[in-house]
């Protein structure tokens, strides 16, 4: 059997998002389900699983940032000083 890979996503508790858990190699959806149940569910570690054929996943991994527009990134500038100033104005202490 030359078989597709199924990516497995699991939900740990109700209300939580699905997170990638790993994968199983299986010839069809039924085998994928049976095997994923055993590998990602038998210890009570999941309340739900998603099984996605790897072929159905669109891969995105190249990021062009040629002009160093660092103000668009979260590490682009510090707000620490401005936050302190704002707190003083509002008369409140910092967190904690």
């Amino acid at each position, binding site marked *: 059997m030359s078989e597709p890979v199924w990516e497995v996503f699991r939900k740990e508790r109700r209300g939580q998002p699905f997170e990638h858990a790993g994968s199983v*190699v299986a010839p069809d959806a*039924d*085998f994928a389900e*049976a*095997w994923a149940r*055993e*590998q990602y569910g*038998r210890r009570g570690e999941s309340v739900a699983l998603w099984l996605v054929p790897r072929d159905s996943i669109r891969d995105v991994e190249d990021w062009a940032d040629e002009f160093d527009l660092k103000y668009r990134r979260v590490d682009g500038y510090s707000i620490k000083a401005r936050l302190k100033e704002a707190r003083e104005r509002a008369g409140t202490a910092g967190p904690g």
Partner: protein
Amino acid sequence: MNEQALLGLADDELVLGWRDSEWTGIAPLLEEDVAFSSIAQNEIGHARAIYDLLVGEEGDADALAFDRRPEEYRCSPLVELRLLEWSHAIARRWLYEAADELRIAALKDDPDKAVAGLAAKIDREEAYHRMHAEMWHDRLRNEPRFQTAVEELWPYAVGMLPEDLRPELAVRTGLDLPSNNLLQGHERGTHSPELTPLWEEMTMVRRSAPAGAQW
């Protein structure tokens, strides 16, 4: 409580759990290795729950499970066979689950509430075992090696059940009931020569520490 039927069920689950555990690490596919071993563990868990019920709160389920002589076990010859060829191991799983479903359904109607409740609990887990077995059956049903294995094991599977449940098993599997002649040596109450070596291994630690091993 139908103690003999329950003991037969528990012994079947224990022994099949042992036999199927022999595939751990050597199943033909990695994913199946995990699944097959997990199902084997479940079966042993069912055996434990039934032994617990049979011995009562003060009783010792381990003693019931391991301190009998081989001939005192009530398991059927089907589960005793050492099957180290995948087509046979998976054919046995499929036949076993079909037969198991029928006797557990009967126990779910037991007038004893503790028995009926435990049967229902076991059945909820067996639903996934059946799904697993059906999936393999669907895939292999036209493979000559699998068909041969089913043919060879069929009289054993019939011999697992009391006579009143056998016709339904034939309907479910689409196979013809064998003649009484063919059932000889395959029915519960007799044992295959393969039980004793299994029993030797299964009870080895227990027998080596009669006062009880502490873990």
